[in-house]
């Protein structure tokens, strides 16, 4: 009897505690703050000017500037350790990219080579290198020593100041600084040292101990952005677009922005704490000069402070443009300095310059740009069939049905629970027959089960990450006791890629694509829910050195797997939760396990915008919120906003109530259907924007200031955003909102996307808000291609005719683009696409070919026509139109702006011009 009683008490106690958890949600104490992170604490305690390094032996070598960094008092050092000089390399690249590397000198025999992150910089980048011939020397005002100066790009120079050591970019003539490093003398580089007798290097956090066999090895330095009003970037955080200061007098945050990929349960909506991804790329923007950027290629834990004005008041260091300068402080636990300076000067220039280093975003498959339906979990084939048929029944299009972890046989990825999914191929074929696709989840934790062939093979081949003592690392995740393939190793990535072949992934078909979750990696019983820092990877790389890139390599290997599976003919689609610089080359990302709260809806916008700014155009937040049950109003608002996310997927936790679009009464079903329909009509526009991202790096959704870089009112606006350069969207983030204040930038007017009503630009409008839609506007002077016919999925829309919506500007002109290809293969890379620019001026609309002359073997043709042209903002109404070349006259009448909401005001409509999008043509309005 007694033991049972004891159990009972324990049960009750634990029950209470468990309940407590669900209320507390985010468990701050499980994650380290800066003070609990020794390198961060040490670095933050340093005083400006404490760096005593000098640049010596500045020469040109192999087309680069190289130098040695030595302490000032090198000769008279009282330090017991012999301090070896560091090697500095400055390289210059086309388009205004300066690269700075600082590492230990390998010729001086450091205990170990420090980790440089491979496979992030694209091979083409090296083609951009400028081979330096000449270096000039100058003693800058007030300096005691010289500085070395090299020409960087038109109007820009890179400067290496010798004493004290400092690197910066300045404008040629004016000498105005753009970005600088170590201007506050906070640079510090802890060299690897062999462990001495009796030295205690271990580091403990909660119940975990990190052996730290190489001792402290962190790097920190300050970076200043000049003529900057705000800084942006360094995802992933749930926080505002314009980064708030984290240090200095009266700042709101006390923690630095943390970059450490973590699986954070119920993350909160406003915090600098690190979540699933890390991109150490920061952008500054200011009204007076424009935009610049700084990227530190380093995959170790990073902490970044944005300094508030006056943080250095006592330092005695005085720098130019005191008022509009933003200082930042970068700290990393390991690795080397491999930093890139981007001169801009426009926002799109900086993004392009960054992408020249890390690669352009992949071109997604057409279907992936449509609507995705997900839930943890659609339980069985019947459930899948039921949900699928309900979409048809309610005339709501969708393209992809997702299966979460429960579809597997005991969380053994690449398998199916045959009780629930006895006929996976047939199930996928049924979806495919309606042009729909399926996505299944494949996570990196491999179940340690000897009867599971993936585990057997990985064990046999030694493909798992090792723990500090050299055994296969064993951590706990969905599948229970699990190990993790070492994705740093190209051979293992290749093996992993082969798992996706139809032969290995039994039950998969060509319409099946993949979702990579938990790839931070998430380890439920690891320190901070991830892998121990002293775990070992390929080439004796410590996990601490590459942590933030583990998910990146996993994503890469999976995407390569799908390319291999399709014999190089099918574009992969892989959604990843973890992300790093360069993830844009491998697929889409989403903002992880958010919550069904208005604040999470709100923060999704700056999160998605920030990802776009830092190279990842294909992202979105879970529509509806992952945790919790959204009120129907929140769900509807989320769909209305989510329809403009580049990645548009609804997802829900398995404890939540079902929330498929038709479950909240007829009216809400209608509202959600409308929202999804808006996305489907705009798919041609979105796809064109994805192509723009693919060629120029400019994101699909953009902060307003990217399109209006000189309008200060837009700089910190993250309630509204631009979809491409033509549509402005403002979310509704509060319950029962009656009015919304929307700032419409620029001098041109804007047209309500839904009603066609025009609004003046350059001012804030107080708008009455209805439940029908969130505010969205087309900018005057733009042309948007649409497809107005609704189908079951985007696949069936391929041959449907287009509608062009032309919003004329004050000089009765407009421009827009349309990109079309086969939507799935890589043939577009060989010129197999249609790319048109539509230009309206002087009463003539012309379609101009932007595709290269079709000399290649690969061609893409389409019979698709334009069925309707809508004119907004015309000063005199044309009566008819003449298609030149064929001399065919077409009618112009009044028609609805949107067929589905037809009874609004009528707009001038060219009826059935019937011209092919593939052709050159001109239409003259009479």
């Amino acid at each position: 009897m007694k033991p049972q009683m004891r159990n009972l008490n324990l049960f009750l106690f634990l029950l209470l505690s468990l309940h407590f958890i669900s209320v507390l949600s985010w468990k701050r104490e499980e994650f380290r703050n800066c003070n609990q992170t020794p390198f961060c604490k040490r670095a933050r305690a340093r005083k400006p000017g404490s760096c005593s390094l000098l640049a010596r032996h500045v020469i040109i070598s192999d087309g680069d500037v190289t130098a040695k960094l030595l302490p000032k008092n090198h000769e008279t050092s009282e330090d017991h350790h012999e301090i070896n000089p560091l090697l500095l390399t400055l390289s210059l690249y086309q388009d205004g990219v300066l690269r700075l590397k600082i590492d230990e000198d390998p010729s001086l025999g450091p205990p170990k080579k420090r980790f440089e992150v491979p496979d992030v910089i694209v091979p083409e980048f090296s083609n951009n290198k400028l081979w330096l011939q000449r270096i000039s020397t100058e003693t800058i005002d007030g300096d005691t020593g010289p500085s070395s100066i090299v020409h960087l790009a038109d109007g820009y120079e890179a400067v290496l100041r010798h004493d004290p050591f400092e690197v910066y970019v300045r404008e040629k003539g004016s000498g105005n600084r753009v970005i600088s490093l170590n201007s506050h003398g906070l640079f510090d580089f802890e060299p690897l040292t062999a462990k001495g007798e009796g030295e205690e290097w271990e580091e403990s956090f909660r119940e975990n101990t990190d052996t730290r066999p190489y001792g402290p090895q962190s790097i920190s330095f300050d970076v200043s952005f000049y003529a900057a009003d705000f800084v942006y970037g360094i995802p992933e955080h749930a926080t505002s677009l314009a980064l708030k200061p984290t240090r200095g007098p009266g700042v709101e945050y006390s923690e630095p922005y943390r970059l450490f990929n973590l699986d954070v349960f119920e993350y909160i909506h406003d915090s600098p704490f690190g979540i699933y991804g890390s991109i150490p790329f920061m952008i500054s923007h200011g009204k007076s000069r424009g935009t610049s950027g700084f990227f530190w290629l380093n995959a170790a834990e990073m902490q970044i402070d944005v300094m508030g004005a006056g943080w250095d008041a006592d330092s005695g260091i005085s720098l130019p443009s005191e008022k509009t300068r933003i200082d930042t402080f970068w700290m990393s636990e390991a690795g080397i300095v491999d930093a890139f300076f981007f001169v801009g000067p426009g926002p799109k220039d900086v993004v392009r310059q960054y992408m020249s280093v890390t690669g352009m975003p992949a071109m997604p498959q057409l279907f992936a740009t449509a609507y995705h339906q997900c839930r943890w979990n659609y339980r069985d084939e019947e459930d899948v069939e039921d949900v699928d048929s309900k979409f048809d029944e309610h005339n709501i299009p969708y393209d992809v049905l997702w299966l979460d972890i429960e579809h597997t046989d005991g969380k053994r990825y690449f398998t199916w629970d045959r009780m629930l999914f006895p006929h996976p191929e047939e199930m996928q074929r049924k979806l495919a027959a309606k042009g729909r696709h399926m996505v299944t989840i494949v996570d990196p934790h491999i179940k340690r089960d000897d009867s599971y062939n993936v585990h057997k093979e990985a064990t046999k081949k030694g493909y798992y990450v090792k723990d500090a003592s050299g055994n296969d690392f064993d951590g706990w995740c969905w599948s229970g006791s699990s190990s993790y393939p070492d994705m740093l190793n190209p051979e293992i990535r290749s093996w992993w890629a082969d798992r996706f072949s139809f032969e290995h992934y039994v039950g998969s078909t060509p319409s099946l694509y993949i979702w990579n979750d938990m790839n931070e990696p998430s380890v439920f019983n690891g320190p901070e829910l991830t892998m121990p820092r002293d775990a070992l990877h390929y080439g004796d790389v410590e996990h601490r050195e590459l942590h933030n890139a583990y998910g990146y390599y996993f994503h890469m290997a999976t995407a390569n797997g799908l390319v291999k599976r399709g014999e190089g003919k099918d574009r992969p689609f892989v959604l990843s939760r973890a992300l790093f610089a360069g993830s844009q080359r491998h697929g889409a990302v989403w903002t992880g396990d958010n919550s069904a709260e208005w604040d999470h809806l709100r923060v999704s916008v700056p999160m998605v915008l920030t990802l776009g700014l830092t190279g990842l155009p294909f992202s979105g937040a879970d529509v509806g919120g992952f945790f919790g049950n959204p009120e129907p109003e929140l769900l509807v608002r989320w769909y209305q906003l989510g329809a403009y996310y580049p990645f548009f997927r609804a997802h829900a936790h398995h404890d939540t109530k079902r929330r498929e679009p038709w479950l909240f009464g007829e009216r809400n079903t209608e509202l959600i259907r409308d929202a999804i329909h808006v996305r489907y009509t705009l798919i041609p526009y979105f796809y064109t924007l994805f192509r723009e991202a693919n060629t120029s790096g400019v994101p699909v959704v953009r902060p307003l200031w990217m399109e209006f870089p000189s309008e200060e009112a837009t700089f910190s606006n993250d309630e509204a955003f631009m979809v491409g350069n033509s549509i402005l969207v403002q979310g509704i983030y509060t319950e029962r909102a009656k009015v919304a204040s929307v700032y419409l930038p620029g001098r041109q007017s804007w047209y309500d996307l839904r009603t066609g009503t025009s609004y003046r630009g350059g001012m804030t409008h107080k708008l009455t808000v209805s439940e029908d839609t969130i505010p969205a506007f087309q900018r005057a002077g733009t042309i948007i291609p649409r497809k107005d016919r609704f189908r079951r999925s985007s696949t069936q829309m391929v041959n449907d005719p287009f509608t062009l919506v032309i919003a004329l500007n004050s000089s009765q002109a407009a421009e827009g683009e349309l990109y079309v290809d086969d939507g799935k293969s890589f043939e577009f890379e060989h010129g197999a696409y249609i790319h048109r620019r539509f230009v309206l001026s002087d009463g003539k609309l012309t379609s101009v070919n932007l595709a290269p002359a079709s000399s290649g073997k690969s061609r893409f043709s389409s019979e698709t026509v334009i069925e309707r042209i809508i004119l907004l903002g015309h000063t005199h109404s044309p009566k008819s139109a003449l298609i030149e070349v064929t001399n065919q006259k077409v009618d112009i009448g009044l028609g609805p702006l949107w067929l589905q909401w037809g009874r609004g005001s009528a707009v001038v409509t060219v009826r059935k011009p019937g011209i092919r999008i593939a052709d050159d043509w001109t239409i003259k309005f009479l």
Partner: protein
Amino acid sequence: MKPSFSVLRSLVPYLCLLFMVSPIVIRSVSAAPLEYPFLGIAPEDEKYYKTSADLINCKDGSKKFTKSQLNDDFCDCPDGTDEPGTSACPAGKFYCRNAGHFSLFLFSSRVNDGICDCCDGSDEYDGKVKCPNTCWEAGKLARDKLKKKIATYQEGAALREHEIEQAKLALTKDEAELTKLKDEEKILKGLVQQLKERKEEIEKAEEKERLQKEKEEKERKEAEEKLNKKENKAEQEVDQEIREDEDKTDSEEKPTESLHYNGVGPLEDSSLVQDVVEDTDELAAEVENGDSSENEGSMVNGVEQSAAEAKKESAVIPDSGSKGIENTEGLSKEELGRLVASRWTGENTAKQAEQVDAAKGDDHEEHEEMPRGTHDEEDDGYASETDNDNQKYDEDNDDMEDEVDEDFREDHDDSSSSYKSDSDTELDLSDTTTLSNPSWLEKIQNTVHNILRAVNLFQTPVNQSEAAQVRKEFDESSAKLSKIQSRISSLSQKLKHDFGPEKEFYSFYGRCFESKQNKYVYKVCPYKQASQEEGHTITRLGQWDKFEDSYRLMVFSNGDKCWNGPDRSLKIKLRCGLKNEVADIDEPSRCEYMALLSTPALCLDEKLKELQHKLDLMNKEQPQRHDEL
């Protein structure tokens, strides 16, 4: 058969009527089908378009369009009036005639989308896909299905009528019984009161007598008695304590508890208490012996009975004597992993471990490992716990219970079955003891009168046999009274229920329907509760709430709480069937269950007529021309 004919088939009647054309001409029409202007229009709607006016109104009145704009693949009417046969208007509807099958209205978005939606193929005419005409075959299947359905409805409707008649009779009977019982109660109450008074008088007299008689021995005897009582009490207290301990973990002792407050119950039957306690001990012992994972499993099962979710959840945490969640330090690596995982899953970690292993079929083995002996015990626990009324009926109840249990076991192999729930025992009981024996009350009345007259109150010493008779009569009469009262209360409870507009659900009262699905057995007892059983684990899916959706839906709500989720609930859709059968139990949303119940009660006449009408239509639509083409 060339696929292009499929389009033709729907057009043929019109074409023949209008043009009397040869098949060759028809073929050319099908190549450019929009030359046939009335595509996608239902026959009854054609006259709207075949107007002599130049302009046709959009049905929503927003605009007018010319005849050449009809089906010209450009949307002029926002409501789709001008484009019934194309996909140009999002709001449009396309009619396919589907001769030989049901005709159909499609969303216009299905026209020429590359997917064959109409069995006659008429929705795909742009030549991109070929849709064979499958209406004849599919229609035959559909007709056969419909015929079968009609047959079911016909038979079901008869059953339903019968049920309704029965129900009305039974209800009258119930009401009559209630009236009668109330009368009896009144009389009996009087008798019992009289007997009580007499008994008390006798006792008073006896007491007096005894006081005198046993005056000398009084002190010693009283002391002795006191001692005895004390011992007894102590013993009882020990039992009580034990039970209280279990109370929180084990509901099996509930019936024993009821025995205590049940004044009529056989107190000497404490062996039952003993049994339960022993069984629990065994269980506990097993728990102690098992390895840690099994330990959790069987612990859960042992605890499960009364199924407070809280208790189940408490099994979440491995028994490590840890300091709780906020402090995870005491946990092993694996326990920590499970614990963290459980944040997302909201499941108890023990269960999760099971799930993890489930793929290997481990859980089936686990079932085998369950101690067989406790199973019967558990059924008892279930029955007595779920039926409070029963507890008022002493030993008869146990017998009935056993019978019910036996039925259970026999039915276990069926995937679905129904049986009378325990509340039926009430009926049987009352039938035998009260209604079938109309003269018992008179007898009692007579007896009591006789006794009351015979017993001489003032006789000393008290006539022992007379006194005994009074006591016996009192005991018997008050037992009867209490039975009658509880019967009255249960009958009035019953009659308060909503048995449907025609009392067609009357027979559901006191019945349970059972369905086996994978490892779970679902029990649905209308007007009472629904539960899910897995081995020893009973989870209450909900208490009877109400009918919804005009008696097409039964709702059970406020079931056991879900961790991190809502209280469990079950909605049962009702449909026409010849037998009462529960099927297709499903959990579309966490802890919100759905099921189907076929029952004759839903075989409604008006629905039958609807189906017959549908079949008539289909038969009429059967294309005589099928063979011609």
